[in-house]
């Protein structure tokens, strides 16, 4: 009896399928483990790269978020600065005098010594003083307290980016200069406040004065123009193609072309814009308006594709419901389908605009990498944009631009992350379960 049962169970186990499965099982499991570890390795690699990238940008960029300032008690000498007709050199002399108070050994009549002394201050310090006096002439004859940026080499020194151990001849500032700066520090005249100039100033040849205002304004105008053109046109094209166009060879051809357009390298759009907008239409170079037009060409396919996907995702039951009570085609589209597709359309649009914000090559071709020291007041003024400003700074030899380039990248990244977060928020907030 027992013999038979054990015989039976043995037979069951020796079933050919069971046998085959058992033989292949370890091999299959091994494969699965291999595949999984490969996937994990790929993710770790990508994360590692991201960390290195962000780490290097932040570690060099954070220096630019503060700026070394020198606190001065300035006597606005009426001899140097008469109330009528403001002289060019006078402000510099007044600042030099304010500095010389702390260095009794220095004779201001010695032009080299004077230049060495004032080189601690930014070249822009005299203009800061002038602006103050111009806006309030009653300051003439008074002693005022003024905080002015230090020039780039001393800013670097204060941030510890200049190695004091380096032999003197390999440094941009010599031992005497370091000693003068250290004396100011001892006197408590050196501070390192938040570098608001990074946002409130336009570009400058002097790193300590250079800011992103021009680039931010330029990017704003360009994106506004891009949005105003690509959003209505893109949605219009998508609605026509998705809802009204007959499905035939021509609409297929158009669809293929739009998809291909989305894949065209951006530099090609720049060349096109240069030839058409600037060459034929005679629009101004370096203008955010032209930049916006160019970016609109690139953003439109993205918006068309996103809009069509969003329209397709609206369930046919809603269309049928509206048609069933006698809505006409355009009432169905504009009264029901489009509003329901809007979150998807907006998500696609924001992602398209975020791409446009980071786009560099086409803007370089239309001259938005010019050196412009004031923010544009209209989309037709010359301007830079965030990515082209980064490009300009990255190309500048002054040490101070190294950290400013990274800081500008961080600002750009912050905008991109914010825009994408808004897109994700919209998508999750309005996501519908049908």
């Amino acid at each position, binding site marked *: 009896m027992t013999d038979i049962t054990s015989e039976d169970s043995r037979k069951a186990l020796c079933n050919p399928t069971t046998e085959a499965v058992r033989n292949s099982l370890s091999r299959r499991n091994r494969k699965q483990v291999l595949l999984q570890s490969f996937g994990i390795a790929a993710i770790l690699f990508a994360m590692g790269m991201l960390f290195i990238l962000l780490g290097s940008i932040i570690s060099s960029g954070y220096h630019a978020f503060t700026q070394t300032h020198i606190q001065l008690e300035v006597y606005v000498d009426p001899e140097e600065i008469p109330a009528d007709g403001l002289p060019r050199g006078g402000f510099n002399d007044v600042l030099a005098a304010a500095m010389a108070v702390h260095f009794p050994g220095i004779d201001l009549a010695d032009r080299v010594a004077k230049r060495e002394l004032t080189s601690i201050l930014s070249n822009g310090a005299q203009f800061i003083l002038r602006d103050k006096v111009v806006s309030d002439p009653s300051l003439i004859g008074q002693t005022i307290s003024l905080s002015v940026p230090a020039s780039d080499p001393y800013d670097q020194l204060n941030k510890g980016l200049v190695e004091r151990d380096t032999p003197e001849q390999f440094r941009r500032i010599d031992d005497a200069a370091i000693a003068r700066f250290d004396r100011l520090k001892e006197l408590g005249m050196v501070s390192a406040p938040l570098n608001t100039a990074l946002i409130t100033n336009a570009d400058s040849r002097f790193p300590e004065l250079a800011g992103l205002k021009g680039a931010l304004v330029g990017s704003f105008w360009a994106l506004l123009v891009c949005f105003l053109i690509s959003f209505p046109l893109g949605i219009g094209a998508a609605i026509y193609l998705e809802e009204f166009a*007959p*499905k035939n060879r021509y609409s297929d051809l158009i669809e293929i072309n739009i998809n291909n357009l989305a894949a065209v390298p951006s530099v090609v759009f720049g060349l096109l814009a240069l030839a058409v907008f600037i060459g034929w239409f005679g629009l101004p170079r370096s203008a955010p308006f032209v930049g916006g037009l160019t970016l609109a060409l690139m953003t439109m396919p993205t918006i068309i594709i996103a809009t069509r996907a969003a329209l397709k995702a609206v369930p046919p*039951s*809603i*269309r*049928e*419901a*509206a*048609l*069933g*009570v*006698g*809505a*006409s085609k355009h*009432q169905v589209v504009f*009264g*029901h389908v489009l509003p*329901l597709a809007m979150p998807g359309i907006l998500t696609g649009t924001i992602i398209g605009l975020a791409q446009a914000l980071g786009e560099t090559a086409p803007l370089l071709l239309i001259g938005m990498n010019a050196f412009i020291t004031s923010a544009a007041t209209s989309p037709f003024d010359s301007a830079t944009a965030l990515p082209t400003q980064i490009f300009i700074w990255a190309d500048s030899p002054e040490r101070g631009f190294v950290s400013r380039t990274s800081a500008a990248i961080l600002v750009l990244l912050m905008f991109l992350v914010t825009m994408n977060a808004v897109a994700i928020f919209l998508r999750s907030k309005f996501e*519908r379960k049908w």
Partner: protein
Amino acid sequence: MFDTPHSAIDERLSDTKIAAKKVQVFYGDTHAIKDVDINIQPRSVTAFIGPSGCGKSTFLRCLNRMNDTIDICRVEGEITIDGEDIYDPKVDPVQLRAKVGMVFQKPNPFPKSIYDNIAYGPRIHGLAKNKAELDEIVSSSLQKAGLWNEAKDRLDEPGTGLSGGQQQRLCIARAIAVNPEVILMDEPCSALDPIATAKVEELIDELRTNYTIVIVTHSMQQAARVSQRTAFFHLGILVEEGLTQDIFTNPQDKRTQDYITGRFG
């Protein structure tokens, strides 16, 4: 089971609301409806039954030209409502659909408030001169659809928040709101539970006094409960049509007999 007196139905036999003659429907090369002739009577419920895929929905959608929205669909033959050819080029499908309402298989309220769901049709057709009139249409439609008591305190809440059965009655109210003469229903209860189904069936029975109702159903019990006449479709052919009690008790065709006795379908 058949609560309409026989004589009352006979009386109405003479008049015809919808008449179809030699109707053919093609989806591309597929011949989905073949040579269908049928007369549908006013103020009564006509049920279309038959195995799935036999063309019930297709034929129903011909009656309000819903098939126009399908590119590959082609309809031939003649369909008249009140003697007027609905496929005449002069007829605008929008106008036709205001007269021939439709209720779908899956409840499909708009993702708007209950009020707006019902007010939508009257609004686009300009049926109300002012807010008071619109309010009146909304409340009377809800009353006719038997949803007033459940919905009157939540008119501003989304229609999609109602239960399945309530949603379907909302869809019926939405169809009623544009004051149609004919209401087409394509398996209106197939997504509902038995209690909700019973309510909708009760409603259909009430609506019959004012509307011509055509209902597609896969449930023979339902056809027997709500309809006065039944049409049996098979493979795109209208096999048999007649008084519901005759179709169920004394079918003339072998295929009808096989279907209602459950031999296929």
